[in-house]
């Protein structure tokens, strides 16, 4: 069984079931949406759950993104990331794309709004996709850097393209926290 399916989320935190075979050690760390998802947060050890002791990792914050990795010796053999929330209600994130001549005859304005203003979002969680499924990354460090819970972006499309040809795509991790509406 892979790492993610061995993680059981509880009211206090999570339990990690031991692997079927192999001498593995597990570590975990917390991160936020504004961290680069390719970076590894600072880690602490995880005890595997067993019948006698029933180890469970406490997560103090009411909602967090959790990174877990397993190593054999120094070699990282498996990693996963998931969203943990004590209250099960999801946040909401909406966006709209509209033509805005103010920025040029071919310009479109994207407005993204979400209800956790204190949380900026790393650029890699969101990208623009056209109707041919080409993806265009955001050229910015963070979305919502000013912590207002709203941010606006502009792109230029070839002639003839309309609002309906474009939409935003979000990573799974972001979708675990927010219900996304257009």
């Amino acid at each position, binding site marked *: 069984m892979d790492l993610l399916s061995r993680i059981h989320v509880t009211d206090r935190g999570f339990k990690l079931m031991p692997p079927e075979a192999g001498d593995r050690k597990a570590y975990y760390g917390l991160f936020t949406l504004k961290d680069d998802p390719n970076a590894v947060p600072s880690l602490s050890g995880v005890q595997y759950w067993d019948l006698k002791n029933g180890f469970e990792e406490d997560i103090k914050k009411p909602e967090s993104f959790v990174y877990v990795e397993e190593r054999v010796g120094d070699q990282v053999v498996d990693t996963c990331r998931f969203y943990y929330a004590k209250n099960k209600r999801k946040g909401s994130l909406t966006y709209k794309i509209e033509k805005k*001549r*103010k*920025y*040029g005859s071919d310009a479109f*304005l*994207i407005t993204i709004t979400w209800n956790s203003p204190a949380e900026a979002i790393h*650029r890699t969680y969101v990208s*623009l996709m*056209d109707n041919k499924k*080409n993806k*265009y*990354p*955001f*050229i*910015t*460090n963070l979305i919502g850097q000013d912590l207002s819970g709203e*941010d*606006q*972006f*502009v*792109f*230029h*499309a070839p002639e003839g393209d309309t609002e309906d040809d474009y939409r935003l795509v979000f990573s799974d991790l972001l979708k675990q926290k927010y219900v996304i509406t257009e």
Partner: protein
Amino acid sequence: MPTELRNYSTSQDATMIFFDMVRDSESFEVYLSDLFDEGQYIYQRGAGMGGQELFHFLSEKLANGDLMPVPSGRILCCFHMMLQDLTDEWVDRFFEKAYELRRFAPLTNLFDQHYMILLRNSAGFIQDDAEKTRINRLLIRLGTESPDVSHQVYLMRTAGFGADFMSQEKAVAYMLHLLTRQAYSSVIPLKYGIPLRMLDSGDYYAARAENCHQNIEAIDSWQNSETDPGLAQLIDLIRVPIQGSGGKMEDELRAFRRRTARCPVSVNNYEGNFFRGYHRVLSPNHPILQQIQDEYVGEIMGRLVEETNFSEIKALLRDEYHYPDLKKLVERLSDGSFKAACINTEGQQRKEEGKAALFERLYEKAEAEIRKAMPDVDGLLRKKLAAKRKYTRELILAGKYQNIEDCFERIDHEVEPEQIAGHFALNVSTTALVSGEPASNWLIRNYSINGVMTAYRYPAIRPCEIVMIKESDIVDLAAAGAETELGIIY
């Protein structure tokens, strides 16, 4: 009564491994490469290998594709050594190897794994009586121990000044070829019991002189003339695809830059006034833009390296390049001037972003391809020179028979295992193989070979058109008086 000509299938049915432990021996390597195709056999010099080592050696060869597996799983293993190198330790290791190789396939028939031991000796070479006694004892050990290993012991013996093993070596090579065929048992039935045997062969080939001259000329030209002075052909094979990839990379980058207009940028990156509208202010050195571009460059580079192939290099090195070309290539590779010739001519282009790294990686791929396809140059030279010596020796045989009829008349008499004074060969068996023109004219001309009842149509034998192999028993190693009889033969 005319000789009957039967058909014989020559598809290979056994894996053949030849261990040559005779120093300075080179004929077998040439004979085998003449008769067998690549991947059908292994020729290995020296055999310090124990059983396990041999097993791993063969497993590796099979895994690499150096050796083609045969469906029957039959193994034929041949050891060629000097008679005086026979020791107790060698005999122990031989039996150990035989048992170890059974791991490849369960034996359904004792002859599924068959061994030939060729002992080379010149008459009068071993003088010492104690040495003779030691060798006699070992021969008897080989003949009597482990009846569950199928092996045969051959003595390759010549007498006299300028002794020549050629006809016996040829006989062994043909014999190995026959034994690896599917229908071997109909021609050479393997017998239980291990006598000491001898072999001889003779052949006739109408165009032999011409063929030898041609081969010698080809080898001379391979050794001395360049086919690609300056290695321009090879450099082109590398440079052209590299340049092509460079062009593709440019196109991709241009397209990428066009695409960046569609990458969303924060409204803060727009400047302007109310009347003239806003415009994008984004430095091309913007760190995120650079990062995105680097990622993209890495991705297309991986793709371009993947799709660029240098497969023609192998054919060029193998089929076209001669010794001086190969030698020059080895030299230029080691001093780095080859690389410079392949990618440095485009200094202007290389300055552009990402391209230098792309060219470097493509060149590395091409060089890996060269190293993979590169033969062992000095080994190849040695082999070619050995072949040249063989053809030079064969030229002497060229005028031996006037025509086919003359050959059929005399060959039975002339092919005869080495005479040993005061000793009679027993159980002489004759195998005659015919191919090419005489085989196709057999019925029309009503051919008959002196002393041969049945000959076989054997298309795999080239360039010889007829071959006769004679095999005779010298001493029954298991018999009571074996030791006394062995005393006479060397």
